[in-house]
């Protein structure tokens, strides 16, 4: 397990899951379909999404099914932080990620640290 990012956490809660990168509304709908398929098969594969734009409140349909959100911009007053809080999941905002490799589909954890800060951890395979 190693720390690969640091940001502001919107809720004092940790979250763990496979990281999925979301760049469009289409990605959100694809993810929603996956969740629905999992529900039908009664399987769960907890997920965290990575987004670049803290205005990305199009995440709404999947928020109730996500463990957490990592956003590379914004802060606690951004719409994304406010909306995720309504769904009771932590968002790591304004996250500075220091990791060279592709993060998609890796297992990560969001964890609160001091004050209102939080860290992004890459979990071992």
């Amino acid at each position, binding site marked *: 397990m190693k720390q690969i990012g640091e940001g502001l956490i919107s809720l004092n809660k940790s979250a763990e899951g496979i990281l999925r990168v979301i760049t469009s509304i289409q990605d959100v709908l694809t993810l929603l379909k996956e969740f629905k398929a999992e529900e039908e098969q009664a399987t769960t594969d907890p997920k965290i999404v990575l987004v670049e734009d*803290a205005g990305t409140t199009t995440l*709404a349909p999947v928020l109730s099914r996500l463990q957490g959100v990592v956003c590379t911009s914004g*802060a606690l*007053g951004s719409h994304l932080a406010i*909306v995720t809080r309504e769904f009771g999941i932590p968002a790591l905002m304004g996250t500075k990620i220091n990791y060279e490799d592709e993060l998609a589909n890796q297992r990560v954890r969001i964890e609160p640290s001091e*004050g209102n800060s939080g860290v992004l951890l890459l979990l071992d395979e």
Partner: protein
Amino acid sequence: MAPRQQGPQPQNRFQVTFLHQLTPEQIETCGGKATNLARLNQLGFTIPNGFAIPTECFKTFVATCQQLEAFDNLHQNTDDIETLIHSATDFQTAASEYEIPTEIANEIIAGFKQLVTQQDPGPTGYAVRSSATAEDTKKFSFAGQADSFLCVRDQTHVLDAVKRTWLSLYSPRALLYLQSKDININQVQMGVIVQEMILGEVSGVMFTTNVVTNDPEQLIIDSSWGLGESIVAGKVNPDSFIIQKQPIEIIERRMGDKAVYSAPHPQDRPECTLLKETPPEKREMFSLDDEQLVKLTNLGIEIEQKIGYPQDIEWTYKDGEFIVLQTRPITTS
């Protein structure tokens, strides 16, 4: 800035009401943002002068669009989000071609003309902002779901911005939010506010409790240069502060890179703001100093005390004063 007295009630259902004349009973007719601002004004806080366009105008406008029925039918009969998004987008496109009915446009123009006589627009124009009936309540922030337009400069653009604010209720993002909250779109009515545009030097958001740790003894401030939209829309990494309320003490300060800031667009266009690069020296300094932080904290504490519960406040700072642009209850799950 808005005067403080309350005044006469509207004569007809399309008539606009200036914010200082709005009563709490008008929440269903003018929406959450307008009502919350009116309340602040009545409590003695400084808000930008402006008027609220009642939801009745929105209702009547969308009802004139023939395509609404088709969208409504589909909306009642499908759970398929993709189909719904396509249909809503089609409706938005079709409805944007419709003119605002004269009776309604005349009321908006009358309000606008009155605002212009009270408030010289200068080069910065006016702000046209959504005020939905589901917006800014304790359960639903509706944060960032509907559109707002800043630095709108003349009557034609104001009317166009009002129409686009109404139709933003049918944007994929608003639709998805409402669906995720199990709210039927027909339960939501769009009010709109037209206000003087405050060209803040610094702007941001303040939560009057520490929403992260749930600590009511602390408050949180995000601040950055220029207009506040860059923060709420998450286009910038702002400075962040945690402040103890009693006695006031700055517990944590975290410098954001503030790489860009939002400013008025030099040309007269419907979207009249743009993001500019922040000069390096301003990136490396905090956008609020200690004295300003204390002043803002005191404002937050006073608003929370007078309204009676924790608030999520959008503010701007201009000419040595903090001005409240919006306040709403802090929403939780």
